[in-house]
Every structure is written in structure tokens, then in C-alpha cells.
């Protein structure tokens, strides 16, 4: 190969082709994905992303929780996500359209969180989990503050053991936002494309 210009053009073409195919192609298909309006229920799904969840997603991103948690449910027949209670159907693109930066994640060192809001978790439990950690999950104590009890126990005080008498553990706004975000993670609606994905999987079985 001796022609420098051809090399340069070839490099550009190689990148541009894959850009066009993958990025522009999928942007074309998914870029204007809108919520789905259900006649029966008279509402659009997904329902939107509350402001405090946006702040919580920022905290999730800062701490890079996606390094251990995914937020994508695989279809039935491909792994066993359904049996673990992570979701009733495969996650589809429409589930994420209102999220500023969909945290799909790439590793499952901890459970999948795509539908955490539908599971039996409550705010207090999540805050305690963040504070003390459990199993492979580290403790994120720096998301909390220890303050002296003024008069009586604050209504926001966390019910954890190992706190010296006279002190209480209170969640910082970051922790509260993170928990609000986690509790908002829920994709309950069965979109037509999700139904099609599920039925195709059943046919294959």
C-alpha cells in the first residue's frame, strides 16, 4: 500500500460506515420513541421521571453503581431473570426514554435493579442497606451523617445498631435522592413490542 490518501479515506470510511449503521441507524429507529398511550387505561407509559429521581440517578452515576448492578431484564429463555423476580418481561427501549442517562450496567455482582420499585422494598430498608452494606455490597456510610441527638430522636433517624448513645444516623440529601431514584425504578406496562418478544420466546420453546 503506498497511497496515503487512500489509506486516509479508507480509515474515514471504515469509521463512518459503522457510525452510520449502528449509531445513526438505531438513532433513526429509537430517537423519537414516544410513550405508549393505552386506550384501556387512558394513560401513557412510561409515566415520566420525577425530579428527585433525576437527582438520585446523578448520585447513582457518581458512585458508579452500574459497575455491580444491571438495570436490564433479559427475556424468558435467556437466563433466569424472571424466576429471580427481577421482572415479568424483557426490558425494552421504551422503558428508558425518560431517564437522563439509562444505567443499563454491565455486571451482576449484585441483583438487577430494573424493577426494584415493584419489589417488596421500602425506603427505610434501602437506607439501612446503604448504611451497613450486606454480603458483597459495601457499606456506604459516607452517604450518612452522624449527629448528636437534640432533645429527642429525629424522625429521620435511621434504625441501625452500633450507634453510640446520644448520637443518631441521618441520611444526607444524596442518600435520600438515591433511594427515591431506586424506588422509582419500575416498568410495569406490557408494551406491544414486549408482548411480541415474549410470545416469540414461547414459540421457540
Amino acid at each position, binding site marked *: 500500500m503506498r497511497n496515503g490518501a487512500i489509506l486516509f479515506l479508507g480509515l474515514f*470510511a471504515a469509521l463512518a460506515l459503522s*457510525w452510520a449503521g449502528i449509531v445513526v441507524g438505531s438513532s433513526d429507529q429509537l430517537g423519537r420513541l414516544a410513550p405508549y398511550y393505552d386506550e384501556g387505561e387512558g394513560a401513557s407509559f412510561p409515566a415520566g421521571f420525577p425530579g428527585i429521581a433525576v437527582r438520585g440517578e446523578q448520585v447513582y452515576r457518581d458512585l458508579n453503581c452500574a459497575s455491580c448492578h444491571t438495570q*436490564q431484564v433479559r427475556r424468558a429463555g435467556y437466563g433466569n431473570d424472571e424466576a429471580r423476580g427481577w421482572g415479568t418481561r424483557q426490558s425494552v427501549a421504551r*422503558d428508558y426514554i425518560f431517564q*437522563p442517562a439509562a444505567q443499563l450496567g454491565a*455486571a451482576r455482582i449484585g441483583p438487577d435493579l430494573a424493577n426494584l420499585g415493584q419489589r417488596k422494598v421500602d425506603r427505610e430498608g434501602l437506607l439501612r442497606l446503604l448504611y451497613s452494606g450486606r*454480603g*458483597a455490597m459495601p457499606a456506604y*456510610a459516607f452517604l450518612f451523617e452522624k449527629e448528636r441527638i437534640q432533645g429527642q430522636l429525629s424522625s429521620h433517624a435511621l434504625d441501625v445498631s452500633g450507634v453510640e448513645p446520644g448520637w443518631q444516623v441521618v441520611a444526607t440529601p444524596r442518600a435520600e435522592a438515591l433511594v427515591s431514584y431506586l424506588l422509582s425504578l419500575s416498568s410495569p406496562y406490557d408494551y406491544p413490542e414486549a408482548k411480541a418478544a415474549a410470545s416469540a420466546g414461547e414459540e421457540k420453546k
Partner: protein
Amino acid sequence: MTQTASASPEDVTAVEIHGRLPLLFLLGSSLLWLVLGGLLALVAGIQLHAPGFLAGCPVLSHGRAEALAESALVYGWLANAGLGLSLWILGRLGGEPLRAANWVGVGALFWNAALLYGICLVAVDGATAIPLAELPRGAQILMVFAYAAIGVGGVLAWTGRRRPAMYASQWYAVAALFLFPWLSCAAQALLVWSPARGVLQAVVAGWYGQGVWTLWLAPLTLAAAYYVVPKSTGKSLPAYEFAPLGFWCLLFVGAWTGGRHLIGGPVPAWIGSIAIVACFLILFHYVIVGLNLRGAFAGGSAALRLVSLGLLAYLLGGLVAAVTSLHGISEVTQFTYFDEAERQLAFAGAASLTFFGAIYYAVPRLTGRPWAWSGLVRLHVGLAILGTLLLVVALAGAGLAQGSDLNNPAFSFAMIAADTRGWLLAASAGQALLLFGNFLLLVNFIKSTACPFYAGDRVAQSLRPAGASA
């Protein structure tokens, strides 16, 4: 008893004499980032089996430690080493001294400064949570400009070459020089500056991540390998007539593997299917590279041994990527430590080992004197090989155990952690060995470059065996 090497006058040419400062700066900073990144990776690795380790420190919480380690190793160690080696190779094959050596030096300075700035921001403020693009956008912009400055030196060495026909190392080096800024700017535009909607960000991030390997780091690796092997063996590369095919196959097919980690995910199925197909088509490139560079396995010098093992890791990585992309297998390996093992096979195995070999080859020519301590060289080679092997195999084992457990709902995450604990301990041991070996390399490098440089014709003399006539 070792056979001392004999040097020829062409070992230290005008290219080395005029370009030694910026190139040694690039290689030296790469080794510093290697050690720092290795330390951060060790911390992150320990936290996998001992979650309480440094958990109280927000800067080193697991997610951030992973982001820091990845950024330091990819944009610190691999980038600096790859660029330094590629510029040197382009200079030598061009036959002219590096014309923009000052630009290269300034660019290298700003690249590392911007990286340091970016890493400090990640440590304090948090990462972008985009794999391989964790640095904040301000740092990334600076890095693109710095890269352009470094690239100027390489591009000028290429356009100003004496012989019009190009050798494989030149194609690969030039490809890496041009493709990275385009790749980075395109990805950053859609991820950070004007974020795309929903899962499109994941698609762009996947395209970028795979592009970083197939269009940037793999070309840098191959540029070094294609140079060191024939120079060390003295023979022409077999089946070289097909090398251009291998080159274009890598480039045209490489970035289409972008959906490799989105198989079965919330994106249209065609993205994953095209990625699987691309992973298989690219095997053609691996076969050609294997045919070309098989002379490396003849062994001999430390450099050639490292390059041959890097080549082996490269070829194995390609095969593993293709096989594990198929649904039947990715059902088990997806989202597990096995993905991490594949990543380490590429970064720590293929790229790092090849760069180590090329560094051992190049540095004596840049400094004008051989490496200071042969014992450290041998120790590092052994530790690098052993550490990388242990790391990759342990992570793969952990991944398989974790994957089969994940698919069985009866296994709680506590049980999965117990099952993978042994493997993860072995992986940490591998990382520790690797870190120690790389530290020895850094020490050797500092000692080799600390003494004042010899100029001109006294260089060749220093490389001759003691007692030989001038």
C-alpha cells in the same frame, strides 16, 4: 552465562537522537500510570471479595475505584505507551527524524496533565459511569487537543517518509492516530454534550467501547508487534501478501462489534446480531495476523517472548469474544466476571505484554544504553506473564461459577459471593504479582534513563560488549 549483545551503528539513528526526550517522556509516564493504575485495580479487585476494604473512603468506593483504575490504565498506560512506540516506529520507518518533536512533547505533557485532572475529578466528584469514557468532559476535550499535538508528530513522520510504500506497522500506527480523535469526539458528542435518548446512549457507548479496542488499541498493539517481530528475527513475515486484507478487515469490521455487550438487552435485536456476526467475521483478521507474526514464537530475547505471548493473548481474545457472543454461551457469561476476564485478556494480556516487549526493544535505542539491571528484566517478564495468566484464568473461572449460579434462582447472592471468593482471591494475587513486576519495570526504567545521555557516535560504543574493538 549470558551472551552479550552486539550493536550496529544503525541502532541509534537521528530519529532517536532528536526525538528521545518526548518519546522517553511518553514511555516513562506510561509506566508511572501503569503502576498507579495497577494499584487502583488491585484495590478494586480486593473490594470484590472483601467489600469492607477502604469502603469508608468515598474516593475509593468500589465504583469509583473501578472507574479510576480503568481510566488510568487505558488512557494513562496503554495510550502513552502505544503512542510513544508508534511515533518511534513511524520515525524509524520513515527514515527522517521526528519533525514536530516539540509538539509531541507539549502534547504528551498536556495529555498527562489533563488525564491527571480528569482522574482527580473522578475521584472527588464521581465518574460519568460510561465504560471507557469515565473522565469528565472538560478533561476529555483537553485530551483530544493534546492527542492532536502528539499525532502531528506521527502524521508528519508518515507523510515525510522516504519510501512511498508503507509497511504494516505504518498502516496500523497511522490508523490509530487518526481514528481515536474521531471516535472520541463522536462518542462524547452523543454521550455527554448532547446526550442521546434512553438506550441510545448505551448503543453509542458500546460503539465507542468496542472502537477503543478494535480501532485504537489493537492497531497500536499490532504496529508494535509488526515491527518488533521481523526486526528481532531478521526474517520477512510469512503470508505478508495478506497483511493488507487483515488490516482492512479489522478496520471495517471492528466497530460493528459495538453491540457486543447489548446482546439480549433493551435494544432492537439486530444490533446484537450484527455484533455477533462481526465478531465472527473479524476472525479472518486474527487468522492473518497469526499467520504473519508466527515467527515470534521462535523465542529468544525477552522482547520477542513478551510479544509472542501478547500475540497469543490477542488471538485467544478474538476467538473467545466470538464464541462467547453466541446466545447459548453468553447466557452464562454475560454480566459476569468472564466479561472482565475478556477485557483483561485484551488490555493486560494482548496490549500490555506486546507493549512490554516493544519497550524492552525500544528503550535502549532511545537512551543509547542497555537496560540497567538484567535481573529485574527477567523478574518482570516472569511476573508479567504469571500475573496476567493468573488474573485472566481466575476471573474466567469466577465468571463461569457466577454465571451458572446466577441462572439458578436457588442461589442467593451471598452464595454466589461464597462460590466466587476463591477465584477472586486468586485474581487479586495475580494483580498483586503484576503490580510488583510493573513496579520493577518502572525502577529499571528510571535507572536506565537517569544517567545523562550519550550523543552521537559514543552511543554505539556503549552498546558494544566490553572489550570489543571500536
